[in-house]
């Protein structure tokens, strides 16, 4: 009899375990391994690269030459040549102090042990709920970049794009380049907001130029761009979706005005990124709320150490700052871990880190300017209508959340047990920051703490806990002598 709770294999403890093989985690693993540490790198994806440098679809020859694919291929080749032990297809669902990491793959569950742990699990997308956001065919904006980059498919034949931040233009240009039609782009931000960020964005002329190219391709194809417009609702009409836009003021509060609508077969919408803090919240590291960088994030010192010994965090999971920052900070975090584990002398560490820190500071300015364009806007949350579903998993509406708060719920954990908001299989990762924002607004107490981290933080089939257990296999102890 094999129970799944016993790890199938027990590899020798590593010096360092890195969770997440995006730019942050992959660079951290490589820089620590270069100092002679034995490093394990775990990721649930099939290859390294994370969200931005995701490997393209095997049959998609055109995307193989995009700047992201080239950077991703370079990252994967360097990883291959390094001594890092990579394990892909492993979804981490629990981490315990010490450190023990539990993961699930097609082969079952496995446990890994390491002296130190770097969590680099990246960010997930925030979508502020609106009526119709649960309809099939409505997908996330960041999700649309995944479709275009690595799934070889368009969201639809005719797509409406809404939300905020740089992904709006990236997705629109991507759809056009791939032969699709864009009905319109609705940008929540007023034009003035982009202009205000311009000086900081200009620190990366290459990326700015790329943005200008995207904008030009929209102009060329005559796609209407609505600045300061929100996606009011989407309704289904036969096989089509009808999306209605509404103007907003500078605070992103909906105002009266013309409400253009579009018949499409797909809608992509996204309102920024939220740091993925599953591991740091589960281990009860200290966190802080940073509006401009996406919300709750772990407290870190200058060397990516959390307040828990041996636990480091890096990348967009520690506050949204973009891919360039993630890879530079990843290298720094790997060096810091190597130094703390005694593989790198303090003086050498300082030399190696100094140049990287300068570059990271510069990249961070650009990344943070982008992140601010995607920050959660309280007025947008306040405008969610009562009948709108906020928690998709459990179909909990705004009205149900409001009435729970009226009845005295004061933490999102209470909200969860009273309404089931955040109790579903996504573990509150889709609704968490909107639920905390709703509570903060209703109670006037900001910021409200996030859902308490729980294990498993990714859904785990019950069969994985039970294993191939048969009651007949359970050995009964011999009866005690009377």
């Amino acid at each position, binding site marked *: 009899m094999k129970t799944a709770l016993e790890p199938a294999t027990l590899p020798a403890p590593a010096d360092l375990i890195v969770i997440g093989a995006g730019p942050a985690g992959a660079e951290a693993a490589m820089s620590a391994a270069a100092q002679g540490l034995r490093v394990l790198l775990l990721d*649930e*994806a*099939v290859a390294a690269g994370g*969200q931005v440098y995701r490997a393209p*679809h*095997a*049959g*998609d*020859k*055109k*995307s193989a030459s995009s700047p992201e694919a080239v950077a991703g291929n370079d990252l994967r080749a360097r990883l291959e040549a390094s001594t890092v032990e990579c394990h892909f297809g492993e*979804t981490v669902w629990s981490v315990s102090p010490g450190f023990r990491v539990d993961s699930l793959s097609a082969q079952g569950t496995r446990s890994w042990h390491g002296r130190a742990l770097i969590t680099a699990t990246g960010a*997930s*997308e925030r979508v502020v709920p609106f009526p119709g956001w*649960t*309809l*099939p*065919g*409505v*997908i*996330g904006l*960041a*999700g*649309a970049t*995944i*479709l*275009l980059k690595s*799934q*070889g*498919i*368009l*969201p*639809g*034949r005719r797509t409406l794009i809404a939300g905020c931040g740089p992904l709006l233009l990236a997705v629109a240009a991507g759809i056009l380049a*791939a*032969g*699709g039609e864009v009905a319109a782009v609705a940008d929540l931000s007023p034009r003035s907001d982009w202009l205000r960020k311009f000086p900081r964005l200009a620190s990366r002329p290459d990326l700015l130029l790329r943005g200008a190219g995207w904008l030009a391709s929209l102009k060329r194809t005559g796609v209407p761009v609505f600045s300061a417009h929100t996606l009011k609702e989407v309704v*289904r009409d036969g*096989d089509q979706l009808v999306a209605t836009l509404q103007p907003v003021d500078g605070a992103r509060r909906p105002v009266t005005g013309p409400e253009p609508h579009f018949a499409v*077969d*797909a809608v992509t919408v996204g309102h920024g990124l939220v740091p993925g803090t599953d591991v740091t919240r589960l281990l009860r590291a200290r966190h802080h709320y940073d509006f401009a960088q996406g919300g709750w994030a772990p407290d870190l010192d200058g060397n990516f150490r959390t307040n828990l010994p041996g636990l480091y965090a890096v990348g967009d999971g520690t506050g949204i700052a973009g891919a360039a920052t993630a890879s530079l900070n990843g290298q720094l975090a790997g060096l810091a871990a190597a130094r703390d584990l005694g593989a790198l002398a303090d003086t050498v560490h300082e030399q190696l880190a100094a140049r990287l820190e300068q570059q990271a500071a510069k990249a961070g300015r650009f990344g943070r300017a982008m992140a601010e364009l995607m920050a959660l806007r309280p007025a947008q949350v306040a405008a969610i209508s009562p009948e709108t*579903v906020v928690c*998709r*998993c*459990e*179909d909990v509406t705004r009205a149900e959340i409001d009435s729970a708060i009226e009845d005295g719920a004061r933490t999102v954990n209470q909200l969860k047990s009273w309404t089931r908001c955040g109790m*579903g*299989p*996504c573990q509150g*990762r*889709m609704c968490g920051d909107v639920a905390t924002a709703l509570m903060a607004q209703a109670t006037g107490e900001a910021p409200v703490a996030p859902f308490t981290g729980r294990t498993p933080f*990714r*859904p785990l*089939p019950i*069969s994985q806990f039970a294993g191939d257990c048969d009651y007949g296999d359970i050995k009964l102890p011999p009866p005690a002598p009377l």
Partner: protein
Amino acid sequence: MFCRYIYRIPFVYEASPKMKKNQTEETVGICAAAGRPQTGPRRKTGLAGEKLAFSFNGQRVEGVAGDSVAAALLAAGYTTLRESPRAGTPRGPFCWMGVCQECTVVIDGVRRPACRTSLAAGMQIFPGTIA
């Protein structure tokens, strides 16, 4: 509007995932609404690769090597993959990055997120819901 909710019954499951494995094509015929292909979204131009045949809800579907299960289904025009357990509204892939679990399907008897599962020839896939 959301056509024929008769496919609710098969969603009320599922004591054992094995049940799905043994489900015959006749018994799943009633969930046809979840699997009604719409005019399929377009593939990216220039995408090529080996064709992989699989089934969704008992219907034969073809994908391309390199697809995720969710992408292959979307390419074939299947946007609804399950319904929500409480309100029973139709759902399909939303985040495309393994977070929302809206794309959950039952693949050869095991419940998995379609967006994070690579397509293989011969997979038998049914709508999934999370009880």
